[in-house]
């Protein structure tokens, strides 16, 4: 349990939760900035962030701020904690911030044909394996409506990879799209639908980056 983060929970929430309003956010933000200038406070905070494992230590707004702050300060966070937070949140910007923090200093240069099973970045590999696990959904007693959501988690992970848009996350997106699993066809169909919402030039860029034909013109 991180004591400093737990103590700071409400304070940080007032600093970043928009529901408190601009004036409160700014006021607490300035106070926090003052704290950071005190000798030893920032280094204590850095140590706490590195050692933190408890997803309940902060509110979701607080974590989002902390993850972005850690990114600007190049502070690494526990991989399991990031994975827990990723699974816990449905907010796509928050998930993008997590993937950005987990991958920004990666030196992996994946080949375009890298398979999901051998994906070299451990955190992204764990995300993809978690999103394509279907054991519990394949049981015969599952309702069809549940089966229809087979790809929901994979869709969200794909969207985050595309939005972060670095060579590494785009390679992960390609590996996810090529992976042969129960939801393969539905995930490909989802990407096609998504691609139809953008202009043809952008659709071609997506197709080139992912190594997948998306453009109707190209298919004809």
């Amino acid at each position: 349990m991180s004591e400093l983060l737990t103590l700071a929970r409400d304070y940080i929430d007032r600093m970043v939760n928009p529901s408190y309003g601009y004036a409160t956010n700014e006021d607490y933000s300035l106070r926090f900035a003052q704290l950071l200038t005190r000798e030893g406070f920032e280094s204590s905070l850095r140590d706490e962030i590195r050692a933190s494992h408890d997803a309940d230590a902060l509110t979701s707004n607080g974590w989002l701020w902390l993850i972005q702050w850690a990114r600007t300060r190049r502070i690494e966070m526990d991989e399991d904690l990031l994975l827990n937070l990723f699974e816990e949140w449905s907010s796509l910007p928050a998930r993008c911030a997590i993937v950005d923090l987990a991958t920004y200093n990666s030196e992996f240069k994946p080949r375009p044909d890298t398979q999901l099973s051998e994906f070299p970045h451990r955190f992204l590999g764990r995300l993809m394996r978690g999103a394509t696990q279907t054991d519990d959904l394949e049981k015969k007693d599952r309702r069809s409506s549940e089966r229809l959501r087979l790809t929901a988690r994979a869709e969200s992970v794909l969207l985050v990879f595309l939005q972060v848009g670095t060579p590494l996350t785009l390679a992960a997106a390609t590996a996810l799209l090529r992976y042969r699993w129960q939801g393969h066809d539905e995930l490909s169909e989802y990407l096609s639908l998504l691609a139809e919402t953008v202009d043809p030039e952008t659709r071609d860029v997506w197709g080139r980056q992912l190594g997948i034909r998306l453009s109707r013109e190209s298919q004809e």
Partner: protein
Amino acid sequence: MVGKSILGAVESSIMTYAKSRLSDLVDEAGGPYAIKFVKSRWATNYLTPSRLKISETPALTWGTATYVTPLAFPLSSALYGRIGLVTDFDPSKWRIFDATDAAARMAYVRWVRVQPAFSNLVLTVHSTQANHYMRNKFREDFKIDCVLFNPDQEADLHTDRGRDVWMAVTDWTSDGKIDAFMSDRLGKARFTVLLDEDFVLEENGLPVERAERQIEKATETILNHQPMDVGAARGDPALPTTVIQHYVNGSYLHLFIRP
């Protein structure tokens, strides 16, 4: 992950400082100075030149940035406090996105519409965070040092939403991310203006579009008043009598701070 036409439209909306509207505003004001009004409690922190705080709240118009106004609009941000902090800045190498221009705003809209996560802006409850994320990503992707924009909120008679221009200034980390915490680019802010007015920013938890003057509006309705140095008033044995006289006469006593 964006097509050439959209990239071109955005790039053509980004100016060097010399060709930007900011350059004209700086010339108009007599130099590269900016002002930001803050709450009174921060006055003592800015008695000597200090860095302005970078605003990180997702509720702001152009993402994580330091929000100031060029000195061409000295009272425009008065709704945020009574203390005006003034700093100089060096915009000579800035890339400036002028969102006061409709073509530039539409270039942003075209860009955001082709983002993979665009549906999050229109189909989820996370739109505030999603917009914040998009605005930051936009500024990072195009290395925008400063966004010029017309304010969303105005202080009665102090701000003109159609005319005034505000700035969202970016500080960068060494690897090209938007920095948080304190601004080095607006790093010599000093307590320079004291304003005798207060505004209410929110109503029922929502930001007001136009904040009314609270003090001046009341004083306008009172015919007579007497200004008095608050330092002198504190030691004046006749002060109770003076206050009673104003009460009886329907006038008011204005206690001001003599520098």
